[in-house]
């Protein structure tokens, strides 16, 4: 049970693929100009990651070291191609917008990293949960980035949600302002917003670590991407 909890927390927070491992940034930065696009790509990535983790895990006793990596790439590419075809069949307009980056999921290092470093050595249920949680961690960052950039850049939130949820979702659009900050839509805006998100995560994590320290401690713990301020807050 605690391992399931640990896997979930790793994916969502401690080892979040986007904010901590900094993997899959190409689609993350390119697609996150609106919330609808972000959510679309996030969901596809989540599904592909979970499916590929499941299959890689179930094949783990069957492949040896010489064929493991090509097999993993093959599995990932297969699921990505299927997702691409299904997206064209059922969400054609969404595919017109994010199609290029759906195909590029194959090159998203998160998927191969999870397959190789986790799923290929873990039982099915752990691998499935890991795929789900890593995918969810990626999706949440993507959606947050998309929401912030859409709000800053276009002055709207939830625009074009009908691409995902059908015509009734057209009314979900909330207009915050008339015009937006162009920078937020352009690629530099993606980098700046993403940097702020990483900073925010590190700040929260720093405070969390600080609060765990005893008052008189002079030990400064250093984890993956987190550095603690020298003066721990009390």
């Amino acid at each position, binding site marked *: 049970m605690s391992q399931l909890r640990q896997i979930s927390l790793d994916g969502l927070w401690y080892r979040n693929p986007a904010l901590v491992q900094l993997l899959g940034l190409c689609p993350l930065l390119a697609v996150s100009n609106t919330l609808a696009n972000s959510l679309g790509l996030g969901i596809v990535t989540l599904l592909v990651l979970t499916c590929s983790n499941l299959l890689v895990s*179930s*094949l783990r*006793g*069957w*492949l*040896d070291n*010489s*064929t493991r990596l*090509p*097999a993993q790439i*093959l*599995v990932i*590419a*297969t699921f990505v*191609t*299927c997702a691409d*075809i*299904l997206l*064209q*069949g*059922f969400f*054609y*307009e969404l595919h*017109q917008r994010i199609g290029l980056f759906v195909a590029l999921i194959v090159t998203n290092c998160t998927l191969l990293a999870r397959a190789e470093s986790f799923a290929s050595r873990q039982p099915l249920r752990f691998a499935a949960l890991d795929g789900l949680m890593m995918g969810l961690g990626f999706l949440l960052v993507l959606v947050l980035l998309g929401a912030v950039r859409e709000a800053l850049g276009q002055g709207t939130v939830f625009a074009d949600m009908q691409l995902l949820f059908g015509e009734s979702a057209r009314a979900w659009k909330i207009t915050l302002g008339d015009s937006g900050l*162009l920078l937020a*839509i*352009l690629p530099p805006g993606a980098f700046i917003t993403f940097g702020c998100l990483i900073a925010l995560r590190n700040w929260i994590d720093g405070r969390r670590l600080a609060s765990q320290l005893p008052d008189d401690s002079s030990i400064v713990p250093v984890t993956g991407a987190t550095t603690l301020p020298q003066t721990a807050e009390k």
Partner: protein
Amino acid sequence: MKFKAWWPSLQQPAVLRLALLAGCCGLLVSSINFVSIERISNNQRAYQNQQLLAVTGLAQATLTARDPATLIGGPAVQTSGPADASAFDISDDSGLRGHIVSLTSHAGYNGDIRLWLAFNPAGEILGVRVFAHQETPGLGDRIEPRIDDWILDFNGKSLANLETRQWQVQRDGGDFDQFSGATITPRAVVAAVHQGLLDYAQQQARQLDASAGVTP
């Protein structure tokens, strides 16, 4: 694991297993492709029809593909259309409502600008839409209707109600707004639309001549 029993035996060479896996993957992809292919081509057609109807401003119409050369002239005289231009006749219950043709401008700020030009048989513009461009976001991309209403200014214009001099952006002495910071993009679009109408008028005159020649 229970399912190990029907997994092929562990003694097989690794390459054969990889090949088997590849075969299974290929089978999965092709079967998914097989069941979706018709849906996808329907979607493509519906999407294009919807895009084209949005250009014409008509709610219901039938589009029939035709040879662009018979509409705006053959490749020799045609300056505004690319080799892969396409054209459609727009008709509804009341008959022929107009034509729609794809044009390409090489005069964009950054690469070709491709657009649909829809006009009625009299040569009056029903609508113009840019469908492919790489103009600067925030400046040149105001030719897209989701960003700016500029492209709608063409509606109702024709060679009859605007003189040649007026088919320019205001900075060049014409009737069309330029964007602050981006004159090249609107200039290219205005020139392409104007050329498209000229080509259509020329082709009409040519056909008229031809039919006049046949009937004494």
